[in-house]
């Protein structure tokens, strides 16, 4: 079962790389839907495997609040021919190379800086931790941040943020699941931010340099 969970986590990482590669804005919303769906399946299987009702509830909420509602809110902001919107002036090839380099660097940092913490504590509180999933969680966090930092499209930046949030849930599941009340509140908070962001997306769809905001 653990191998299957690891496979799902690896799938989430591949989806994060897909977000880096695509230059059509619509693909970013697809990333949110697909990655969230995989996360939801991961949570559901973990819940069934550990007989945890909390995780099953969390899985349902993840797919509904993040997979369906978030995507629907963002899609409403697009004109009818949304598939044709491409990001302006992206340097996708160099970002892909940077993305791969960052994956390697993150895994090396994890191996030498974070894994030892888990290893030394393996006889104690961290026995439940799943190192491969935790490592992938860290990598997706960095990939999400890279997406935010390298793109000008606000939708791409927001996709990066959702990716980071998904990675946090994965990390939490990989290390030690938080109480359900906290997990649900996090989901609701992020949903509120999605609604707020959709209002901010009403204006210019790309983040820009403004003279008054310099200095």
């Amino acid at each position: 079962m653990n191998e299957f969970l690891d496979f799902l986590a690896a799938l989430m990482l591949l989806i994060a790389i897909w977000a880096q590669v695509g230059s059509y804005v619509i693909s970013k919303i697809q990333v949110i839907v697909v990655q969230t769906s995989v996360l939801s399946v991961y949570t559901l299987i973990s819940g069934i495997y550990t007989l945890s009702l909390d995780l099953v509830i969390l899985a349902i909420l993840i797919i509904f609040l993040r997979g369906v509602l978030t995507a629907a809110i963002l899609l409403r902001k697009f004109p009818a021919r949304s598939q044709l919107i491409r990001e302006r002036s992206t340097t996708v090839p160099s970002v892909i190379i940077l993305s791969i380099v960052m994956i390697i660097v993150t895994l090396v940092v994890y191996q030498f800086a974070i894994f030892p913490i888990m290893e030394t504590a393996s006889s104690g509180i961290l026995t439940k931790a799943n190192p491969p999933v935790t490592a992938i969680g860290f990598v997706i966090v960095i990939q999400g941040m890279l997406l935010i930092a390298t793109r000008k499209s606000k939708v791409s930046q927001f996709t990066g943020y959702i990716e980071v949030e998904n990675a946090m849930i994965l990390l939490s599941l990989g290390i030690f699941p938080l109480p359900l009340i906290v997990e649900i509140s996090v989901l609701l908070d992020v949903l509120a931010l999605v609604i707020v962001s959709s209002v901010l997306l009403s204006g210019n769809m790309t983040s820009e340099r403004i003279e008054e905001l310099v200095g």
Partner: protein
Amino acid sequence: MNIYLIMIYLLLILPPILSISYFTNHTQIVSMIGSLLTVFLSVLILFIPLSVYSYFDINQVNRVLIISVSAVYSMSVFFASTYHKGISNPEHLQMHYSLMHLFTFTMLFTLLINNFGLMWIGIEATTASSALLLIIERERNQMEAAWRYVLIVSTGLTIALISIILLYLNYDSLDASFIISGGHGVSLLLSVAGVTALIGFGTKIGIFPMHTWLPDAHGEAPSEISAMFSGILLPVAAYVLYRFYQATVTPVVSELFLFFILFTVIFVAIIMPSQRNLKRMFAYSTMENMALILLGLITGGLALIGAILIIITHAFGKSGAFFTSGNIIKSYGTKDMDHISGLRDRMPSSAATLLGSSLIVTGAPPFTVFAGELLIFYQLIKNGNYLAVGIIATCLLVISLSVISKVSRMIFDGNEKVAEISRIDMTQGSVAMISFLLGFSITVFFLGGLI
């Protein structure tokens, strides 16, 4: 349910109820009366014995913050009543009031809740409830600043979630007072939790280098929102970080906190002399103030008292500075300090409040911020941190001289060209003056031995 718990619930329930006034035709008057009631309830809570009440905690730091949150919120509601008089879409103003109430609720919730997970939720909710407050006129600059605010702060706070996972892993509980009062040993796990909390909440507080949203949001927000951000939101976030620090403190975490605080103060000292935008100047000043507050809180002892003094005085002083800035910007039609002169003759009362507020927030003697800084320095020297004291004192001098010289130029230069006095609305002028006087009165109480 005891009377104290009822008072806490009342304080928390009132602002969300006020936000429903969006659906009535009396939003403004309901907001004003409701905000005054909130202040009244906060004053009552000041007299509650320090203890844990069900899910809530009243301690010596958060009860002071509760007062400052309510007071600045109330002044901001009054200020907004005339500041946005000519707004193009009145519905936006109703929404603005409604969000101000929700924003205040999220801050009060964050301060009172005794659970680390829910504290994080509260801080994240402050972002969601306040982002739209920046865009009342839907201008391009405001939209961009709000976007940066949402994106940078939310992403930063996500990092702080790691801290909560690790805390829960270590203590098997997220009960703040239980964890803090129980004490803890030194472990690598807690160090990582402390560092991720610093990065995450440090983004919200404006700790260098995670501060980039702060000058944009403060600079573009309406003045009453800048006052709420600077005077109360950031100290609330600093309080949360302080609570996390208490739960995770190890020698490594302690040194890293000090390191980031020092870099923040040094950064502000470098960038302050080149500032030309009035509100951005005060935004950077807030970064310095927050760094000092955080330093006082984590140093403890007399420095903790110093931090509390700065929190309360800064809340009123900085609000006064932002309220006055709003009045000046409206009158001159620019935020560029190079184009603002002759304030003494053109706007005499604004000149007085601007100078007074600037002296308060820059820690000029005999104001309480100065006393707070002295207490922090005293404790640092006692702890043997001479280098930190030297660096901070030098940077504070540079920052203070920069701010005061820029403010003095606006007030005292160019008065000979002033043909007439600019009239500002009485409410706006009074709110700015009251805010300054409240900051000043704390100094009087402190010097009189009443605090």
